């Protein structure tokens, strides 16, 4: 069976060059980088090199990089670490309704411990209003946490403007850049970002490694106490292979970004156009332009996204409805709900997120297999028939009402 992977916002394969870069540290270069003897030397060097590679992606200094285990840890460290360090200055956090659960649920947890959180709205494109950011700031505001790009819709937020707002007011600005990293360029200095979080497995490194940019001078209380690793900001013996991997992945991302993002945008738009031509009642969720080049979130009205996913899977196509971290939950995507998209429509949403191995042939295959699936689902849906003016099959119900 054909296997087409269109779920790169959930995770990516490990790039072959990344795998090569990490393997020595799972074999001969096994030493502990903190050791003073020969076994620690290569691992130590590898971490230094990776720190440079990651710092290059962020455009920051090597001392401003903290390696973590994942994006969720990075977000937890950024948010809990900041409010803990600044709790004598205030107790108010500003974030959005469309953050990843790693941010949303951390904020919800902090609400229970006495912090106050403002969750910013988004418009029907999934975009925040910069005026609302400003008007939400109070004298107690200590942290603004707003994602760089949304994982479900790919919408890119006005990070630079938020950075300016936060900077003038001595508020820490954290951005979850997990989806943006490697897909669009970003320069933490130019954007006035204080903390930015990335995750290895979204940019062709393996799972279990992340990196956080922490601007020099910004105070943070660590989550994990222990040894003097990562300048006392994150204890625990370094995941050397993972660190080497994320370093290499960042280097490749910077190297290939321009060509790759152009290529993916073309493929993504081909997919959008191809499906919209063949399937009626398809809606784009998200902003048509201010969007990651690889992400396409579509609603197929009158069908359930879940059923589409299962049927696509049986044809070998991996896509997603909403984020992988929330699938299996009852609620429709909190992102689409926040955008004001009606339940029926958000229910039928699918996210296609493209990546380095996707070809035009893959896209055309999906354009071939998906329309008949949607048509079949719709033929089974009484809602669809009613909406298109065809007589819905309601004879069953009518029989019961004859008396």
């Amino acid at each position, binding site marked *: 069976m054909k296997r087409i992977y269109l779920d790169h916002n959930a995770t990516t394969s490990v790039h072959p060059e990344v795998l090569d870069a990490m393997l020595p540290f799972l074999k001969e270069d096994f030493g502990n980088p903190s050791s003073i003897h020969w076994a620690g030397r290569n691992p130590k060097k590898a971490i230094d090199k990776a720190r440079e590679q990651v710092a290059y992606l962020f455009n920051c200094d090597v001392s401003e990089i903290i390696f973590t285990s994942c994006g969720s840890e990075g977000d937890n460290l950024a948010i809990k670490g900041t409010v803990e360090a600044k709790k004598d200055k205030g107790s108010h956090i500003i974030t959005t309704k469309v953050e990843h659960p790693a941010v949303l649920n951390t904020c919800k947890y902090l609400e229970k411990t006495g912090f106050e959180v403002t969750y910013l709205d988004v418009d029907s494109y999934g975009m925040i209003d910069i005026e609302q950011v400003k008007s939400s700031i109070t004298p107690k505001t200590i942290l603004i946490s707003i994602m760089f790009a949304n994982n479900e819709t790919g919408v890119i937020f006005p990070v630079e403007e938020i950075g300016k707002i936060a900077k003038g007011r001595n508020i820490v600005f954290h951005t979850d850049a997990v989806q943006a990293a490697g897909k669009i360029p970003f320069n933490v200095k130019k954007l006035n970002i204080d903390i930015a979080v990335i995750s290895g497995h979204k940019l062709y490194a393996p799972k279990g490694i992340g990196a956080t940019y922490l601007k020099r001078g910004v105070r943070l209380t660590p989550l994990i106490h222990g040894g003097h690793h990562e300048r006392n900001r994150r204890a625990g013996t370094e995941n050397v292979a993972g660190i080497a991997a994320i370093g290499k992945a960042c280097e490749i991302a910077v190297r290939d970004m321009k060509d790759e993002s152009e290529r993916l945008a073309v493929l993504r738009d081909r997919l959008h156009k191809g499906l919209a031509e063949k399937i009626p009642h398809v809606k784009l969720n998200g902003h048509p332009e201010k969007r990651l080049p690889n992400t396409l979130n579509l609603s197929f009205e009158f069908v359930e996204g879940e*059923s589409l996913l*299962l049927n696509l899977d049986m044809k070998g196509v991996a896509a997603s409805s909403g984020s992988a971290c929330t699938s299996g939950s*009852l609620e429709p995507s909190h992102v689409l709900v926040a955008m004001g998209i009606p339940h029926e429509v958000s229910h039928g949403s699918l996210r296609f997120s493209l990546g380095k191995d996707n070809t035009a042939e893959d896209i055309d295959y999906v354009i071939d297999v998906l329309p008949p699936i949607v048509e079949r689902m719709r033929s089974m849906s009484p809602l669809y028939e009613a909406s298109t003016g065809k007589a819905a099959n309601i004879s069953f119900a009518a029989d019961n009402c004859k008396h």
Partner: protein
Amino acid sequence: MSGGVDSSTAAALLKEQGYDVIGISMKLWDYPDDINRFGGCCTLDDINDARRVADKLDIPFYVVNMEDVFSKEVVDYFVSAYLKGETPNPCLKCNQILKFETLLKKAVELEADYLATGHYARIVYNDLSKRYKLLKGVDKDKDQSYFLFTMTQEQMSKIMFPLGSLAKSDVRVHARRFGLKIAEKKESQDICFVSGSQYHDFIAKMTGVYENSGDIVDRDGNLLGKHSGLYKYTIGQRKGIGIAAGKPQYVVDIDAKNNRLVVGSRYDAFSDGLIARDINWISMVSPELQMDVESKIRYRHKGVKSVVKPIGEGRAEVEFFSPECAVTPGQAVVFYKGEEVTGGGWIERRL
């Protein structure tokens, strides 16, 4: 696939017989804020068990989210039935709506030809009547045909019960033969969405009413004591009524309208028959006049000889040959002729 031995073995047997099998688990209920809960039915652990079985059998496996439908059709029904003074049967509703409507629809959406479950019952096609017949499972102790009386001909044409001709002990033997780790897993007994057997607390929590006391009276209306909420009682109940009387007292009526619990002697708990609603006939479109059947008035009931007579509007009157104890509104009455389920309905009131 619930993660239990029955549905797991059903899947394994079908795979062995050469069917192209897809495993599906239903996610029915979110157990919020209780990360320490284990066991019960349909928990994350059970879904993981089902997934491991599917891996072992090398079949595709999906978890489908049916929390919405379950909450509306089973949990809300469960709570409101108690508030109406009835004793609900959530497993029956779950079969009727979740499995044989919603899940069957999912199966059809996946272009599956059949939906198979681990029920102990049999479906056979009768060439003469051109209808599908529902028969008891061969294992009389495990027979689950009682829970299946709502099935339509259309549904039965698409449903398979691979365990219908097997004894439970044989099913475990098969499970071991297939090397399924769940072969020795215990049966689920409780109401899956209520932890432990504390449905009282559950209803109080769902309705927000923790105390709704009313009178306990005898059949003549004499006040005998106070009850703390009608939903804590079921017809025929003797223990825990909370009144001191010379002789044993049984719940004989739950009068929700007046918030009264009526108790009486054991004799008072017997009925000569019942009225049932929403009757579904399986072996025929509908009997013309009346029919001799064996009626089961609850799952573990041994059955009573009766005459059933349609009285219009989907209702039927059932007359027992000899009085039966604890006819309970909200439970189902299912009609049998020998091995065959002729139909059934929901008990509305006793006669």
